[in-house]
């Protein structure tokens, strides 16, 4: 068995103990819930986006909900990785991250290989614990839904 130290890297535990960007955002920021039905994890992503399309910029993001060390730290790291970024860039990070998680229906684009995952690399050990992969990607899937919801509401406003 891969050791627990592969999973519980120090940086992960740090994000778990001291999660970044916890809280809420008021509308017009979107608010999207995600569940992991397996273990009961619940996450809420609050997302403020400025602009439309791939150039739109995530101006703020907050996380609510409860979850295990992996889902909480993954969410926390995610907020750092996306804040101030453009949607196009974020999608590239998301593809790289999911592909690192061994999720095989991701179609990587050529430029993705240049994406630097930074701290998120620390979650690499999760792949060795297949049941935890869902924990690590929960926040990202919820973010994807939040981005879609932002785009939809931007379209409604237009």
């Amino acid at each position, binding site marked *: 068995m891969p050791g627990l130290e592969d999973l519980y890297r120090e940086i992960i535990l740090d994000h778990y103990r001291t999660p970044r960007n916890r809280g809420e955002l008021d509308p017009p920021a979107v608010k999207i819930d995600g*569940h992991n039905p397996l273990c009961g994890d619940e996450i809420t992503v609050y997302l403020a986006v400025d602009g439309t399309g791939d150039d739109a910029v995530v101006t703020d993001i907050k996380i609510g909900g409860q979850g295990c060390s992996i889902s909480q730290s993954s969410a926390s790291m995610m907020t750092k990785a996306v804040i101030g970024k453009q949607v196009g860039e974020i999608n590239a990070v998301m593809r790289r991250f999911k592909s690192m998680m061994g999720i095989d229906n991701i179609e990587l684009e050529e430029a993705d290989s240049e994406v630097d995952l930074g701290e998120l690399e620390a979650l690499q050990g999760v792949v060795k614990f297949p*049941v935890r992969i869902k924990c690590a990607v929960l926040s990202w899937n919820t973010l994807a839904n939040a981005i879609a919801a932002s785009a939809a509401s931007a379209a409604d406003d237009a």
Partner: protein
Amino acid sequence: MFDLDAVRSQFPLLADRTIDDSRVVYLDSGNTSQKPRRVIDAMTSFMETSYAPINRSSYRLAGEATEAYEAGRTAIARLINAPSADEVVFTKNASEAMNLVAMAWGRANLEAGDVVVLTEMEHHANIVPWQMLAQERGIEIRWVGLTADGQLDLSNLDELLSDAKVFAFTAMSNVLGTIPPTKKLCAAAHAAGALAVVDACQFVPHNVTDVQDWDADLVAFSSHKMCGPTGIGMLWGKMEILEAMPPFMGGGNMIDTVTFDGFTTAPVPAKFEPGTPAIVEAVGLAAAVEFLEDIGMANIRQHEMSLTRYALDTLNARFGDDITIYGPDNVEVRGGIFSFEFRDLHPHDVSQVLDEKNVCVRAGHHCAKPLMQTLGVNATTRASVYLYNDEADIDALADGLDGASDIFGF
């Protein structure tokens, strides 16, 4: 094609079981098939070394069990060329799958006066659920008739399909052996704006199946007829159709979340799999698929075509006008199922006499009573073959029939 003795030796019941000191001539695979060693061993060894809950717990043993269960889904997807394993929903049998279609898709999409088209050669599993829906909300059922040689009479198909919402038909008749032109029928359904639902129970075990080539919408079949365990069946469906359907049954595993006020559903396929599923059976089913793939579905079909030719020729040659075998004579459009009338003897008596020779056939209406009405009988005797049968089995059938007349003196 393949080594029949080697194949048969893998089925313990066929290789070793005797009754009154003689081996069993099993000609009832249209009903349910025997199980090869590989399937039995897969189930046994899974229970001995790897049994655990799936989808719920997160320790390694449970993770492994979940993977083993999902491997069953992947195997089925491969066997029928489904675009994605997630489109394969496990049910308890094909009947549940048909009920799922009629009840979940049907309740969501059909109203009083809406038309569902079936054929006169359907199994009760593809009739009664629609009749239940007809009772509940007054849908209309129309029936595609048969030609004299037991094929679908497609001459008025367009008329029957006009305004229809569903066309649900068998890909191979469990009574006549008839193999209708499924791809063409799916196209006809779609041209009329109807959902194409295929009962592939008898087809999948014996043929190369390609649901994408068919362009079917929903396809039901059973594990136990394809060398796999009892207790598990499948509904394959196009993802967008499954996603748009409401759940059929509620409970654990099929939910995203539940509060005191209501619930939301999990993604397909979990949405249609409430509770603890047939875990050990999915493992056995994966082994069955691998077993069939190793032999090759095309080879199985070839073998059964030549055996079908042999059976039709042998029985007709030996019994002439004393036997009436239903269904088409052309083995290109029929499988190895032979329903027949023999010398005015009642099927139950025929089966009894054959049983004394250890020849196992089915006597009755074969869960197709409306078809019996069309044929003008209330029962037939039915022999059906599979990959493990050979010409000697057909000869045993013919010999057994010979004996029947002595008793009844007809």
